[in-house]
């Protein structure tokens, strides 16, 4: 479903050149739950950005849902992202000026979903995360755990094929972190591919597979064939 082949990402400024990803090759199957771990600055978030089409690789190939997307234009990347990618961020990143329902709705307005259908899907997403009763509340009125649950609802309301989560429990306490992980696992169990960056070994252990990174490279030989994964047809 997602396949990186010898992907390299270099960030260039006038003063310095940073090799963020160094010859990364990775395959992720449909419905897989993959955890990415590594020290700070090893390239985890960059890898997630490339997988989520927020950033393009400097070299290499990236196959997403059967289409090679590494050389796409910004507009094409946006359209591919709309078609099947959802995001969950460490800092929740809810829009302060929108209420809970409007925040979840953001994921649908760019997909030209009609208004009445948007309402239904937003309601269903909030029901799934247990926050339908807070639909009219502003993000500042919610706890950290609740905000992250709204972010999860925003990620899944568009029914994406893959959800990318960048340290989704990083700013939460243990209880809330576990609750969010339970939620993500349930979503994954329904067939949504889940790729999660995390520092928590406990949370990573709940994934089907763990890949580790160091200095922009995959380590422990995980860059090649996938082992012990649930492989579904693409």
């Amino acid at each position, binding site marked *: 479903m997602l396949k990186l082949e010898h992907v390299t990402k270099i960030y260039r400024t006038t003063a310095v050149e940073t090799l963020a990803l160094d010859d990364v090759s990775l395959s992720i199957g449909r419905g897989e739950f993959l955890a990415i771990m590594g020290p700070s600055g090893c390239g985890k978030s960059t890898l997630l950005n490339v997988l989520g089409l927020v950033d393009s690789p400097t070299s290499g190939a990236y196959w997403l849902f059967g289409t090679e997307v590494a050389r796409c234009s910004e507009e094409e990347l946006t*359209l591919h992202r709309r078609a099947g990618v959802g*995001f969950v961020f460490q800092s929740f*990143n*809810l*829009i302060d000026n*929108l209420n809970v329902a*409007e925040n979840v709705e*953001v994921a649908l*307005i760019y997909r030209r979903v009609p208004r009445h259908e948007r309402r239904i899907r937003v309601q269903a997403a909030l029901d799934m995360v247990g926050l339908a009763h807070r639909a009219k509340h502003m993000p500042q009125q919610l706890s950290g755990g609740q905000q992250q649950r709204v972010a999860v609802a925003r990620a899944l309301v568009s029914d994406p094929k893959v959800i990318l989560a960048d340290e989704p429990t990083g700013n939460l306490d243990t209880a809330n972190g576990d609750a969010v992980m339970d939620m993500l696992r349930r979503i994954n169990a329904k067939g949504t591919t889940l790729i999660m960056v995390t520092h928590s070994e406990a949370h990573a252990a709940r994934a089907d597979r763990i890949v580790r990174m160091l200095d922009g490279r995959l380590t422990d030989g995980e860059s090649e064939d996938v082992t012990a994964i649930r492989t579904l047809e693409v």
Partner: protein
Amino acid sequence: MLSNYFAAALRDLLRNRVHAAINLFGLSVGFAAALLIALYVHDQLGYDHFFAGYRHVFLLSETENMVDRRLPEQPMDSSFPDLAANLRAHFPQIADVVRVMPASDPPHISRGQVEADETGFLWVDPSFFRVMPLKSVAGDPKTALTTPDSVVLTRTAARKYFGRDDPLGELLKVNPAMGSAAARVSAAFNTPQTMRVTAIIEDLPENSYLKGEVFGSSLAAYSGFAHYDVTADQGPFRNNGNYTFIRLRPGASMQQLRQGLTAFAAHDSDTSTVYPPGFTVGLRLTPIGDLHLSPPGAYSMSPRGDRGLLAALAAIAVLIVASASFNFVALMTARAAKRAIETGVRKAAGALRSQLIVQFLGEAVVHVALAMVLG
């Protein structure tokens, strides 16, 4: 989508009231100032443009030099009253000519209990409203001054003397009040005369070279023109205060007319039917639409404007708007950093660059529109 944008923009505005107020205040004051200047400049540039076909109407002014008196040559807005009749005879390019003579002393007008020394009184030829058409309230202005006792009022003058807009056919007592010297020539010049209201027109706009409320026919035996005619023995320099306007025929050649006027003015002193012997005259045509901002002439009926001043004001208006805009952009840019998360989230959710531009540019447009309304 728009409701989502609108909700975000409105709440951002409400949450940052001080910043929004500063921004809106600065923009609205800037727009208000620029708008006022623009209105003033527009008014000045549009002097006398309200006359239908104003591009064909010209003031004919003179530059006179009496050689044996060694008077300095000076351009004058006024012209000899005798000129008009000769123009019609000599120049087929001219469709019509009118003379306008503001009353040198305000005639005293009375009707019932209402009396006034009318400073807005003009003696005009019957062709006045053909050369300078004005919108009628009652009657036909184009034929309204063909009888000696006819008078045309503006709407304001009609209300002043009659308390209503359409006193058609009503009578006014008009004393030309030209003083005892004029009375010695004819008692009519200093005696109340009965004049009949034959038309009412809309008020002349403020931005006009002409300032008039009451228009008396030049055919009256007690008009300023009549006084000029009966005092010929006082010589060429007797007071006349006449202004000659012409209306060209459509398609007439201005160059031919100017050449003709130059030849007409460069007369042989023995053959001139207009100018006394020993005069040299230059005749100049000034479009009425350009008259207000043209170089000033002596005996002008109303003060001229100043092109240089208008240009300076326009430049100031542009600077004010530019300054307000820079300030607005600076304040919005300072706020933009706080919306970076929203931008990133919307982009991750599938927003195209153009959609983000529409959203944030739209907010700026709403700010500006609100400032314009306030201004």
